[in-house]
């Protein structure tokens, strides 16, 4: 999985591309979130537009990212969920846990 980090004002955006699955993409996601959190980011958007497949390990890393951000007083939101990723979050009732937006501009504005 490829991770591209960029800034839009004070919002850090992580563009993910590829599979978030056990042993590979899950670790990359964890490392990317850890890096931005340790760098002091308090507003993080995870752009899921390029995610082709996510398994339960990948979902677990998203949850971990969310709780890590929350515990640090930061906010983490998701944008551009592909339909099948949205379905997976929905069936495990995580769609109501995350703040999810259909576009980057909506996600950035949501931080206020």
């Amino acid at each position, binding site marked *: 999985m490829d991770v591209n980090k960029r800034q839009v004002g004070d919002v850090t955006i992580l563009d993910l591309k590829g599979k978030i*699955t*056990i*042993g590979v993409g899950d670790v990359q996601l964890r490392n990317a979130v850890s890096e931005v959190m340790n760098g002091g980011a308090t507003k993080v958007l995870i752009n899921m537009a390029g995610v082709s497949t996510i*398994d*339960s390990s990948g979902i*677990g890393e998203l949850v971990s990212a969310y*709780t890590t951000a929350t515990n640090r007083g930061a906010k983490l939101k998701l944008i551009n969920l592909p339909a*099948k990723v949205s379905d997976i979050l929905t069936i495990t009732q995580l769609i109501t846990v995350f703040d999810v937006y259909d576009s980057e501009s909506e996600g950035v504005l949501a931080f206020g």
Partner: protein
Amino acid sequence: MTVDYRFHLAVGSRFENIELVQVVLKDCLQRIGMDDDAQHWVDLAVREALANAIKHGNLQHPDKQVQVDLAVEGDDLVIRVEDEGVGFDPSLVEDPLEEVNILRTNGRGIFYMRKFMDDITYSSGPGGGTMVTLRKRFAGPKTEPSD
């Protein structure tokens, strides 16, 4: 011409071998004429079964293998994944939808398998490890393989 829609693989207990199985699986699912949407969910269910076999069954031991068997049995696609572990009681797995478990970082794999397949059953393999059998009903294989 009779077309045999089946394969059997034995892979080492490394997560990267999941991708190897998925390549063969995808080819097979396309040849039997399963639609793209159904293929995606079957792919995910098999990923979860493989991940569990590698991680929990075989403890990623380099000398232990995961056996994967796929066959079409009537209107069912049947996939069996077997590890060389010490066995497993699926009734001990907690419900990830219970409020106390919603924010857990693990424990969703079996739930996904049950959601994405029409039936899953657990049994003991001949060597005492765990075998999970995944079944998906579909319209039946094409009479001729697609190119």
